[in-house]
């Protein structure tokens, strides 16, 4: 076993960087003093000014994660930002703190990074932080009118039992009671005192339609035309789940568009903050349910960063193999669903699912479950790959997948209908994509070769020889072809990983139910098939995380949807949405 990759070098770089930032703004930037925390604290009055400098002078052009933490004991609400350079390297963490007295106000950074839009709305929705000068501050995951801000530490849900799992009611000696019976409303409900449902007037989404109108393009032709507002979803066959999109149309042209989400918001963060570190692992499977292995990897990396433990050498390779197999099946499914949306109902999907089944067989052999693998553990994986599964992987990687990928390319890529629909339809240019914090294949198809596996390598990706797939036109065809490029690169990585994989233990730690995680914060991120998947964890040394936040690729990527679709035709909208390759489990969490 070799030593884990050195962590001191990047830390020194960060320390110098933060010193430089403090020297540049001695009045408004202060160093972070809490142990195991990184970054700087910015006075909220100067946030916009400093953020502009971080972007323009320091070159951190990609704001990836924005989230809030409720420090109830210190009576502070903190907003944490993670910024990165698209040219690679470690990140810059900066934060603002506000007194925890309503109204909690923090300046919005949408002007500087448009990608902060939805993430700030999420912090407003779940924490009640008002981002002043935000152009469209509405609730995003919950509905308007919902009582309270769920992620605040003093907000308790209806089925609340205890602060931390395992609940006493679940122990073998504990007497089982239904959660329903403990609640005055006999259900998962919590109404305010003296609430009268008979006289309640529900919100009729005026805010949504007003905002849609405000952000729509204006008719400048001089012709008098009528506009219509169409709601697509949440039940619509091509929104990839339960996404709803409100669209203003003039004829067939999209003038304005607002995604409405939260239809699959199943409270991942809140449940995570009550579960032990290990108990969260199976929940991460259900984030992006196509790619459970990648989700496990992102979460494991974040916790390992906090625990400062090495990962067993063999396990690193197993992780890479699983993550890349996941990427291949995700991209195959992407091709299937995209062609579905374009009207080639089912046939390409059937091809894609055939290969996916074979990959799922491998997942089932190693983990016991087809989709929800729950395979990774802190320090490694839960068990070794069985011998027959390894030979199956080799068959797939060396024989079947290259042949089948080539077959799919041969069948589809020169297809006239596909070319007609995809070629020259603009998705995003590189500059806009970076501005909107778009990551993953969509960013790379716009000519920005930003791949975290290369830009900020994690696991053992720095040992493999592969190219970052990049294409330059930023149209739908490029977005489509880049998935095939990535499949080929993944196969290259897989071949090398299979050859280099050493023998040895698959976990550096003893497998245990309760891991000891020291107090501090960590942000672990990986290049998931859909983009950057980040996990932000704050621990206070207890068995459960104090704050657990997922920075999903889908959720941040969809911030750019409005920009992508405005001015295009409604029939292209479905394909443009397919390009983002969103999955609702991750988008809504």
């Amino acid at each position, binding site marked *: 076993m070799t030593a884990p990759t050195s962590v001191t070098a990047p830390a020194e770089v960060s320390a110098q960087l933060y010193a430089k930032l403090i020297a540049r703004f001695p009045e408004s930037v202060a160093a972070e003093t809490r142990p195991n925390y990184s970054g700087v604290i910015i006075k909220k009055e100067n946030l916009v000014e400093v953020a502009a400098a971080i972007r323009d002078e320091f070159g951190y052009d990609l704001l990836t994660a924005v989230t809030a933490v409720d420090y109830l004991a210190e009576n502070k609400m903190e907003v944490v930002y993670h910024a990165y350079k698209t040219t690679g390297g470690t990140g810059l963490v900066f934060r603002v703190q506000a007194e925890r007295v309503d109204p909690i106000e923090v300046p919005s950074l949408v002007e500087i990074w448009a990608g902060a839009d939805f993430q700030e709305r999420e912090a407003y929705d779940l924490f009640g932080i008002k981002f002043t000068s935000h152009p469209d501050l509405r609730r995003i995951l919950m509905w308007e009118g919902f009582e309270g801000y769920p992620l605040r530490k003093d907000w308790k*849900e209806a*089925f609340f039992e205890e602060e931390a799992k395992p609940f006493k009611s679940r122990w073998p000696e504990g007497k089982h009671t239904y959660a329903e019976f403990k609640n005055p*409303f006999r259900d*998962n409900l919590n109404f305010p005192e003296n609430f009268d449902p008979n006289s309640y007037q529900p919100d009729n989404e005026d805010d949504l339609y007003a905002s849609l109108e405000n952000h729509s393009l204006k008719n400048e032709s001089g012709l008098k035309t009528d506009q219509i507002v169409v709601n697509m979803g949440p039940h619509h066959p091509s929104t990839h789940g*339960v996404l709803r999109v409100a669209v203003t149309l003039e004829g067939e042209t999209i003038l304005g568009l607002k995604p409405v989400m939260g*239809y699959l918001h199943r409270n991942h963060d809140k449940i995570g903050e009550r579960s032990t570190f290990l108990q969260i692992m199976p929940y991460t499977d259900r984030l992006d349910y196509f790619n459970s292995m990648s989700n496990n990897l992102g979460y494991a990396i974040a916790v390992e960063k906090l625990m400062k433990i090495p990962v067993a050498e063999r396990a690193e390779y197993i992780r890479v193999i699983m993550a890349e197999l996941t990427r291949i099946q995700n991209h195959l499914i992407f091709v299937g669903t995209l062609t579905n949306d374009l009207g080639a109902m089912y046939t390409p999907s059937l091809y894609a699912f055939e290969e996916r089944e074979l990959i799922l067989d491998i997942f089932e052999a190693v983990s016991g479950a087809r*989709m929800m693998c729950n395979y990774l553990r802190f320090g490694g994986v839960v068990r070794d790959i069985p011998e027959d599964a390894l030979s199956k992987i080799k068959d797939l990687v060396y024989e079947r997948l290259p042949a089948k990928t080539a077959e799919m390319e041969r069948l589809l890529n020169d297809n006239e209908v596909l070319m007609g629909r995809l070629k020259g339809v603009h998705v995003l240019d590189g500059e806009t994509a970076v501005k909107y914090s778009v990551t993953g294949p969509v960013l790379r198809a716009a000519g920005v070769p930003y791949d975290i596996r290369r830009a900020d390598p994690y696991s053992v990706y720095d040992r493999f020889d592969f190219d970052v797939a990049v294409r330059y036109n930023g149209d739908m065809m490029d977005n489509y072809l880049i998935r095939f490029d990535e499949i080929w690169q993944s196969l290259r990585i897989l071949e090398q990983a299979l050859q280099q994989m050493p023998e040895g233990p698959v976990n550096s730690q003893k497998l245990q139910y309760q891991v000891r995680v020291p107090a501090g914060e960590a942000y672990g991120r990986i290049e998931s098939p859909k983009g950057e998947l980040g996990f932000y964890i704050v621990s206070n040394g207890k068995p459960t995380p104090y704050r657990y936040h997922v920075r999903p690729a889908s959720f941040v990527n969809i911030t750019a949807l409005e920009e992508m679709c405005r001015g295009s035709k409604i029939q292209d909208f479905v394909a443009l949405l397919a390009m983002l390759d969103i999955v*609702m489990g991750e988008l809504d969490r």
Partner: protein
Amino acid sequence: MEPESLSLPNYNIPEDLQNVVAVTTIERLYNWGKRSSVWPLMFGLACCAIEMIAAQTARYDLARFGMEVMRPTPRQADMLLVSGTVTKKMLPAIIRLYNQMPEPKYVVAMGACASSGGPFKEGYNVVAGIDKFLPVDVYVPGCPPTPQALIAGLIKLQEKIDKEKFKTSRWYQKGKTDPNYVPMPVLGPDLIDVRRNEEFKRAAARKAGTV
């Protein structure tokens, strides 16, 4: 159902006519037709939806049971497959879809979440089981259920359909107006099940009194 099973037992049909002639009842014929073409609503909620799609694909091939025709519109669907976590925000849409489906209609709760809330039951935006609102015919356990488990559940549904009688099944009862209609819930400070308004009002008043 094989032609033999369409026929009533104890009728001796000559061997050379067995694939041509069946002696049966209207009820049996009707159930046979219904169970052989249960068209699901093309409606996916969460993770389970992916396994539902996988059940449609080549390896599992739901078409063997006459269920491959997924209809995107509820007006042409016979079965609502609730495939995933039902959230409070989504519930009105599901109820609206269910109310639009023509009778006879069936509901299959696929997976732990749709059956009971599953791993997300404690969540503030999660409905602990679709059966709090819709009459569920078959529960399929699993998280997510494998396609095999889903198919087993759907075969159970077919068996249920086989046993239906005109006299007792809920859509052919006289006098009742639309027995399957479910009133739309309202999104208020929390999810308001309008059938329980008075109960909620009392409980909210009690809550104020105790605090």
